[in-house]
């Protein structure tokens, strides 16, 4: 437990590389060259096919998922001292401090609880786009499996909701290790398609989560930012932590096309004829504005936003975020003590 709280970037990198090295050795027998490709490269992971294997490959060794309870209780992780108040359990009195200061103080501890996490994967048609090594949906599948594996390994509860226009799959959160198989099975059997109505789908989920927990949204978040913000606020009101993992394709960020072409909508049955040279600047401007708005909306509701592109190393993306989150918690705890 103490190791998880004090996880340092160096230690996690060291363990991450060690695992990758050992697994790469076993993969190399399948014909992959460890010198030319990284095991965490999305294209390489995608070739593994089995999501469970992917999850193990990525997660094993680099995190031992520890989550603190926000309840102060009697567990061993000391949090702070506070003056005794009537009604407090006398067992919590710090006699040593009383001997020093002749005052009554009660010792408080952070309570360790099982985290209830719901992974919400967006399977709308726009997630099917992928000119780079993998599609956004595939990247979301791999990220979801990694997160699920990570959380279950920590004996946290993991649930899955696949949202989209035509697909509504829901697996309620359970802490059992063999629950991962079901999560991954559902993920594997869904294809991204149809028009996105992410906000409406999320509204339906708000009623299903009874306990406060962590909602992890894997989506490109295309659509109205205001509506999404409104729905995510409802989650926040109910006490849920929200992590928005925005998955984008690099082509969507650079729009590298040169020749005039028909662009076929992945969500609606339509095509538009576009000369990329003439719309690039305006497109990029619109897209940048969208990202800025989304970032502002997520910040406003106190959630976290991680933007990942499908050509980025999945392990690095997850590790980077978790490391950053651990640092924030540590800073937050230090402020609380002071």
């Amino acid at each position, binding site marked *: 437990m103490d190791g998880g709280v004090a996880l340092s970037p160096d230690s996690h990198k060291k363990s991450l590389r060690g695992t990758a090295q050992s697994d790469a050795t076993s993969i190399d027998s399948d014909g992959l060259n460890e010198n030319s490709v990284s095991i965490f490269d999305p294209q390489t992971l995608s070739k593994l096919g089995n999501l469970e294997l992917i999850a193990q490959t990525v997660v094993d060794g680099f995190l031992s998922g520890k989550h603190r309870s926000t309840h102060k209780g009697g567990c061993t992780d000391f949090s702070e001292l506070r003056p005794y108040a009537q009604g407090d359990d006398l067992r919590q009195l710090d006699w040593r401090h009383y001997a020093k200061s002749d005052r009554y103080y009660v010792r408080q501890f952070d309570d360790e609880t099982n985290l209830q996490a719901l992974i919400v994967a967006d399977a709308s*048609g*726009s*997630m*099917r*786009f992928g*000119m780079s090594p993998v599609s*956004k949906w595939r990247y979301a599948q791999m990220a979801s499996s990694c997160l699920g594996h990570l959380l279950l390994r920590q004996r946290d509860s993991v649930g899955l909701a696949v949202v989209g226009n035509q697909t509504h799959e829901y697996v309620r959160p359970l802490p059992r290790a063999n629950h991962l198989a079901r999560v991954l099975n559902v993920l594997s059997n869904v294809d991204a398609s149809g028009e996105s109505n992410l906000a409406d789908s999320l509204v339906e989920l708000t009623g299903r989560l009874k306990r406060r927990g962590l909602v992890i949204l894997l989506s*490109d978040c*295309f*659509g109205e930012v205001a509506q999404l913000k409104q729905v995510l606020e409802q989650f926040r009101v109910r006490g849920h932590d929200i992590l928005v993992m925005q998955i*984008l*394709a690099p082509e*969507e*960020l*650079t729009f590298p*096309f040169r*020749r*005039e*072409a*028909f*662009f*076929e*909508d*992945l*969500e*609606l049955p*339509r*095509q*538009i*004829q*576009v*000369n990329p*040279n*003439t*719309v*690039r*600047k*305006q*497109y*990029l*401007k*619109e*897209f*940048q504005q*969208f*990202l800025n708005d989304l970032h502002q909306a997520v910040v406003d509701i106190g959630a976290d936003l991680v*933007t990942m*592109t499908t050509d980025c190393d999945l392990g690095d993306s997850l590790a980077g975020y978790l490391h950053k989150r651990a640092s924030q918690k540590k800073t937050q705890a230090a402020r609380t003590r002071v």
Partner: protein
Amino acid sequence: MSFLNGLFLAALPLVAVPVLIHLYRGRQRDVIPWGAMQFLTQAKTKGRSIERLEELLLLTLRMGAIVALVLALAQPLIRGAWWATSDASEVVLIVDNSLSMSRTVEDLSAWDLLNENMNEVLAELGGGDRVHVLLASGGGEWLTAEGIPADSGGKSRLEAILDNVEPTLGKAELLDCMQRAIQPESEGKQRHRRIVVFTDNQANSWQLDAQGAWRQLEEARKNSAAPTAIEIVDCSLQESKFNNLAVMQIEASSKIVQPNDSIELSALVNNTGHVASQNATVQWLVDENVVATTNLKGLQSNQSARVKTSVRLEHAGHYAITCRADLQDQIALDQQSSVVVEVSDQLPVLLVHDSQPGENAKSANELLMAALGYHQDENAQPWHSVYHPESVTSDELADRTFANYRCVIFTDLGELEPDVLDRLSEFVAKGGALWVALGARTDRVAFNRTWHDEGQGPSPVAIQILRTVDDTNEPAGMIHPPSHEHPATVHLANTTQLDIDEARLYEYWQLSPTQGESSSVSVLVESGDGSPLVVENYFGRGRILVQAFPLGLEWSNLPQLKSYVVMVHDWLDYLTAGSTARYNLSPGHAIVASSPAEAAFATPELVTPDGNEHSLIVEPTNDGHARFQFSRTHQPGMYRIAFKSGNETVASLPFYVARDTGESSWQVISEEEREKLLSALGLHTGADSSVAPQQAQAIRPEEPIWEFLLLLLIVFLASELLLSNWLGRQRSGVAVSTT
């Protein structure tokens, strides 16, 4: 517009290539599945029309670049005022200083008008222009060795130079002058050439019949390195009755005479004006001294008259005899004409004879010398001809210098050494005279091989056969009276006073002119049946006369007749006229002279009609005499070589270059000729293109514009690159940042 390489225009369809590429790329479109459609639809709705405009502009620039490249390769020439740049020009002023420009009406001469017009043109020139002046009289003479800048200093210098120019007796050769003005390379950075012709538009000056030369001029103007414009400034006087009396030419009975011999002179005076002339006094001058005066009655328009006089000159030498009419008319310069005559005590003539003593009672040698007044008995013949014969045999010819004699006479041609024949040919070619009488000593085959040489030798005729006349009363044995027309037989033709009709021939060689040369060979005398007996022709600058019978009594009785003496003198005069013609020249013929004996060591200086002095070129000759030559005799008038020893003139030789009498007539180019002229110069004919008085006509040349097209090509390419680059920057934007 015309093209130097019009074949390249076949590549013009390439202009469609950008359009085809544009259309092809428009048809070849991929289908890209796309997720972020919401941003694409928003972007597409903005700036669609501007995008089309930009594409159209790019397409136009690309097509323009191809058109500019193709046209530049085709090298177009275009005529247009707006093409003419304001760059400095090389200006050639062609000044008509011919005789007609001296015409004066009411104290205003055409030359004054020319100066006014020229000053106006000079005033308009910019400081960067360079000016050349070409005098048109006598085929063109550059007044300035190099161009003079048209700045203030240069203009002053030009005016000073032009102040010394006056109308001459010469004829303007405007066509030749324009050709010369087009040819020189530009000296400085002047990109254009402007040729301004100042003339009174005399038809005589334009050579309008030389169509080939006009075409060459137009070609030369088109192909000139610098675009050339030609302007014609009309300097003719206002219409008025032309009033002019001209002394056209002088004829002398003989141009070589002995001292105190009478010379009959006849001057042709013509009223070339449009009104009757007044009575005039005609003066005869010998070296500027009046020796005779004659009155001339008024002449009607285009009427001519001959004024005659006789002159006796006492001392040996060369004399310029001038005839001058004294009256007021519009052209004063043509009121006189001159002729140079030679007075000599003796003119050496070489007689070549091979007759053996006692062979005949009177040899041809003796007969000929007697005809010239040189008899063995000096007392019997006090008179003798100016021709002094020296008798030699053919064997002695090897030691003789032919240049010392005016004429060489063979009384009965025998066989000669090849070297002698070569020297004789050279002698005749340089202006000497040769009289060859054939006879019994003549070898037909050798003559035909060496003298005739199939037309390449000095003899204009070959020998066919020897004809023997049995009955001398038959036409074949008689001499047909010669023609009055030929100057060598004018006197012989007079059968009333002379007895040529009594001549009888017993034998003679039948002569046959070379095929094709019959027209150039003059037959002086022929037999009664038409067989040529005496023929003459030019060989080089000299004359050769071939006679079919000897000069003695062997084959004819001619030496016994009175006609014999006349014949010998006339034919010697005729043959030696080439030597006297050296003093009476046509324009362009070189002056060639030797130092007189009394001025062997003097320095010769030549004074031209305009008073300028020139040093003479010394030509050493084979005979050891120094010979002087001066070639620039394009200006008519009197030239003099003064032989000076220190400041003293030891001797003087006059030379007269005859003028073109056509300049005395007043004949302005007609309307038809004017149209022809304008057309030849590339001007469009019409109301605006007339050569009006004091109005310059500019002929804008077709100028090459491929430099401009290449510049346009660069502009198109640069614009296309800049525009496409700018559009690329405008449209590409900055990649979206996710941080």
